[in-house]
């Protein structure tokens, strides 16, 4: 209904953060944000993806598909129609160190939607027909997403580099590994790991924190959710293996390139701030050294970037090129890395980078839900959320000498893994000319 003096609600001026423990000890962080039309609740199943090996990770997209069909006692059509009429959604997302269940609902239907979500989690449709369909659908969707070479490269490289360590797993899988799922192991894995005991809760929206807590407590009782225990992650991840590996897809004319380096970043500390500054200087899109030289000056690629790993102790350089430009690109990346290592950063350059980073941060954390995401990330990785939130102030303290000594230490690292996805018949001769001696080749179909 249009009114004469109209309003658009963008962001509330009143957003408050409450933290508390639910009746079973589950930590709940709740932002009230009357600017959101619907309440958002994320249940973070800490460590769930880490309980299965790499070739079992297919369980997570499959069980997500099973969950999507609703609980027992309700057909898929009935379940989806119910959600539709509630204007609500329930979705499932595996990620590094977690399996997230996201519940979005208008406030007046929040409890009903929450109840549905717990029904699904506790009593999914694990009959053979439904599980078989879920496996089939998962495989089909994966084949579609793996048609993008970048997907295949990113899926494989980090896991392989860290030797399939559990911390390198994130619930993603390949078409080949989905074939290892069947009617019985999906059921047995579900029973084994979906115990709901390591769940954290994050909520944002127009409902007051106490009401959110009250609704959740009612569910914990009704669905007999066990006492919360924090999931203890391994402190150390397997040491990576420097190597050169081609992931072969025949007859393509474009090749994806990923250099991976090992380094454990103190993301929540001062290092994290200096690292972001350094990577923006070196590989920040079109304004970093990589983009400026490889794309803007030499026209070798549409994209070249570098950044530190948010989830794994690593940093990377990523780019791609056609067959004719690949050799120059590979050479160029090494040159630019060296050049950046040795270059002098001016005060103006540093100021520009810092200003841009601050503006980016402010945009990235514009809404209370963004801050809640930051908190969830910090909790999973044991970073200080306070430090992360303080980034705009901290980054302004980075000096040119901080940046120069830091980039010299990071960029001087010559131990790396190089993964290239493309046609091996094009890539192998190039790598030989560039002096890479030992090159592994795997077929894309074996991922």
């Amino acid at each position, binding site marked *: 209904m249009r009114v004469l003096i109209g309003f658009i609600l963008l962001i509330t001026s009143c957003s408050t953060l409450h933290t508390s423990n639910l009746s079973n000890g589950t930590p709940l962080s709740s932002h009230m944000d009357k600017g959101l039309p619907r309440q958002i609740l994320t249940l973070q199943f800490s460590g769930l993806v880490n309980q299965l090996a790499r070739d079992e990770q297919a369980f997570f997209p499959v069980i997500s598909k099973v969950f999507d069909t609703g609980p027992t006692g309700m057909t898929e059509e009935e379940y989806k129609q119910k959600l539709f009429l509630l*204007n609500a959604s329930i979705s499932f997302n595996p990620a590094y160190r977690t399996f997230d269940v996201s519940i979005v609902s208008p406030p*007046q239907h929040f409890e009903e939607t929450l109840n549905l979500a717990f029904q699904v989690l506790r009593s999914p449709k694990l009959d053979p027909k439904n599980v078989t369909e879920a496996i089939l659908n998962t495989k089909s969707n994966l084949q579609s997403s793996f048609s993008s070479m970048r997907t295949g490269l990113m899926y494989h490289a980090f896991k392989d580099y860290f030797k399939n360590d559990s911390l390198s797993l994130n619930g993603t899988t390949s078409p080949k590994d989905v074939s290892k799922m069947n009617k019985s192991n999906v059921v047995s894995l579900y029973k084994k790991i979906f115990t709901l005991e390591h769940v954290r809760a994050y909520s944002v929206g127009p409902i007051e924190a106490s009401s959110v807590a009250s609704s959740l407590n009612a569910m914990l009782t009704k669905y007999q959710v066990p006492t919360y225990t924090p999931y203890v992650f391994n402190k150390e991840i397997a040491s990576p293996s420097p190597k050169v590996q081609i992931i072969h897809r025949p007859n393509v004319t*474009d090749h994806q390139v990923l250099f991976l380096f090992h380094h454990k970043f103190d993301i929540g500390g001062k290092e994290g701030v200096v690292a972001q500054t350094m990577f923006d200087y070196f590989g920040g899109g*079109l304004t970093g050294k990589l983009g400026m030289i490889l794309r*803007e000056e030499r*026209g070798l690629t549409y994209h070249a970037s570098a950044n530190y790993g948010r989830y794994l102790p690593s940093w990377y350089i990523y780019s791609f090129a056609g067959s004719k430009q690949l050799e120059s690109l590979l050479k160029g990346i090494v040159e630019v890395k060296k050049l950046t290592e040795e270059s002098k950063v001016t005060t103006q350059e540093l100021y*520009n980078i810092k200003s841009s980073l601050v503006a*980016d941060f402010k945009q990235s*954390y514009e809404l209370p839900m963004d801050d809640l995401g930051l908190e969830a990330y910090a909790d999973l990785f044991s970073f200080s959320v306070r430090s992360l939130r303080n980034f705009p102030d901290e980054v302004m303290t980075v000096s040119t000498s901080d940046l120069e000594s830091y980039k010299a230490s990071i960029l001087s690292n010559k131990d790396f893994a190089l993964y290239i996805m493309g046609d091996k018949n094009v890539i192998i001769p190039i790598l030989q000319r560039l002096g890479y001696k030992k090159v592994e080749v795997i077929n894309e179909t074996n991922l």
Partner: protein
Amino acid sequence: MIYTLLFVSSLIFARDFPVELREQVGIYHYSLDNGLDLYVTKNPKAPVVSIFHWVRAGSLNEKKGITGIAHLFEHMMFRPVHKGEKGFFDKITALGGSANANTRYMATVYTTSVPANNLEGLLKIESDRFMNLKVTDELLDVERKAVWSEYSTKFDTNPVIDIWGKIYEAGFPGHPYEWTVIGYRQDLEKIKAKDCNAFFDRYYRPNNTGLFISGDIEPSKVYALVKKYYAGWKRGEDSSLPKEFQKNTKFTSVTGRIPSPSKQVLLGFRTKDEDKHSLEYMFINHLLFGSSHSLSDRRIKQNAKLASAVSDFNYDYDSGLVKGFFVLLPKATLSKLTAEVLKLKSDIEAMDEKNFSAYKQEFITSLLEGTLRNDSLNEAIALSWGKYKDLNIFLDWDEKVRALKKESIVNLLNKFYNKDNMIVVTTKAKE
């Protein structure tokens, strides 16, 4: 000077969202004498200022033999304006900002953001490139290679992007929709600096441009700055779009070029009178393909079990087609899929008021949630002006969507939703 204060309509629906209002936001419209349309949104909570330049110059303004020039020129807009100076990315970084752009069928859109205290600096460098850029063959040759890389990684290796290009090629023979935004390979090689400069001269004019600025800013001050820097931009010939594709059509089915292990299908219907029915088309797209409870999802994925995934495809970005994307399951056939898709119209005809209202509510929610951020709010305003040619779509979307009648949707479907007007492209099977 035309000055209009527009208030954005209330999004309170006490029945559905008991939301408290916190801020009053206004959208201010100005027109400069040279025809530049300026929309300033005062948003005190914005973290930075968002600026959109929407230029009515896209691939639909190209001619055969020189396709891809709109896109190639877009790339050149980030190069130095004057000899010896830095490129646009360097300049904007110095202001603590960021920039991007994309070329579409009907427009090229430049997006930038800066802290509010650097807005004047940004408008200075923006107006400079929009008024004074001169392309040289030397820089064009370097940029052409980057576009080759874009071509190569997208169109030569990605089967989904390949079929996106194919659906237009198959659906609009002899019309500018036929070629993709990136153009034909052979044309890319031929484009010279003088062609780019001629394109710039013809289309990059204030009367072909909408400027959208949203942030913690004072509209009158922004207007004064825009006048200061853009008033000297000379009006030119109005841009115009080609006539709607008129040829008699029959059902078209083609295969893509890039092999894919799974059968992926892009299926579309050419729109009729898209300009006159913008909101209806948006809603139809939502009903058929875009909603997570879309009619396609229900009929084709859930019931007929023909697909593992169903979605819409680039609707806001593209024009000319209402299209859906399907990842087919192994036993599904194209004939079954097309038959089921055609039945979606009867699903709408048979829909009761309760469900129709629920779709409308869902659509309103998605528009509302999609404009919570300052830059997405600014984009929605720009899109309403640029693509939908009706700012009231944005201003009154709740009211307008609620007023939609099933009969008007069905009447529109009767104009374009039939087999003869359908184009289907399937990815090539992998051997």
